[in-house]
């Protein structure tokens, strides 16, 4: 049997937002206490900026998405968005009516591939699966 969770009093009102009233992708809605709702950000770092163009053939830069901000039902707001979302997903599974689905657990991870010269001027292609967040629960 699931032990009832000793929940800390959430800072905001007890009234839980309905899951499908979660903020849209680029809404600038701030939750009631000035905390920024979870938003998707793009990170692109040009390899030219890093001075890597003499050894990296492709891609031209590192590109990924990440989420920043807090879900509307923060269990513990000091976690970062992704860890928080994973915990919230677990709690949601146990108490789907009381706790909404987490809004930014990664739902699609993509591989990264990089083509570069090694120190013997051989050309190397390296691929790593499940490395870059491409989509998450709310975006």
């Amino acid at each position, binding site marked *: 049997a699931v032990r009832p969770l000793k929940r800390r009093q959430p800072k905001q009102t007890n009234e839980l937002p309905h899951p499908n009233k979660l903020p849209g992708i680029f809404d600038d809605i701030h939750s009631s206490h000035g905390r920024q709702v979870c938003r998707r*950000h*793009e990170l*692109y*770092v040009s390899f030219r*900026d*890093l*001075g*890597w163009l*003499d*050894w990296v*053939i*492709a*891609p*031209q*830069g*590192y*590109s990924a998405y990440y989420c920043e901000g807090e879900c509307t039902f923060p269990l513990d707001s000091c976690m970062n968005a992704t860890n928080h979302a994973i915990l919230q997903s677990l709690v949601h599974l146990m108490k789907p009516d009381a706790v909404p689905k987490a809004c930014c657990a990664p739902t699609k*991870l*993509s*591989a*990264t*591939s*990089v*083509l*570069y*010269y*090694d*120190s*013997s*001027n*051989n*050309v*190397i*292609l*390296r*691929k*790593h*699966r*499940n*490395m*870059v967040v*491409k989509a998450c629960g709310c975006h």
Partner: protein
Amino acid sequence: GSSSGSRPQHSCPQRRLGARERRDMQREILAVLGLPGRPRLRALPAAARLPASAPLFMLDLYHAMAGDDDEDAGSPGRRLGRADLVMSFVNMVERDHALGHHEPHWKEFRFDLTQIPAGEAVTAAEFRIYKVPSTQIFNTTLHISVFEVVQEHSNRESDLFFLDLQTLRAGDEGWLVLDVTAASDRWLLSRNKDLGLRIHVETLDGHSVAPGLAGLLGRQAPRSRQPFMVTFFRASASTIRAPR
């Protein structure tokens, strides 16, 4: 942006990276890409850095692999998506042997394999050499075979290990792909020894032909047609990439 890292369309707040940010960002991205660190490149004369056959081939492979994203299903064996690491070797020495009239002609290529990381399992290996139509031999069928030089001897012929044989016409042109996967067992055991691949060409009635006369191009070929080797690896527990 797509996984091939092309510039995303939306405009993001842009700003220059500070020195410390650059260092931190480099370390982070190297870790995500699973690269041990930035290689110390050997300075090559500019002409030698022109696009050569291996980079062009590998760039096509990169784009094919990028489109292969997250494709884990599919037939086993050498599907592109299943390889974690593909290495092309261009750093080599070439030797021709055509001394005695009765002795077989051959062309040998030596590859430096010291850069192969430990813990990688070879799934396939190919030796790629470009053939142009022969200017000396016409209307003839040729057997082109490749051997691994297992052990060299000063007083007698080297110990060879047969790898692959292809049959084609003297007038054919294009990339010849020879399967050298069978040699990978030995080279993983002795990584600091160069890998020697020896090419023999014979007519149907067994006459040895100099590979160059048969139209096989070596290091003197234009840079986009020079021979190279490609090896596909399937990573076992690679320690380079710390769990994210």
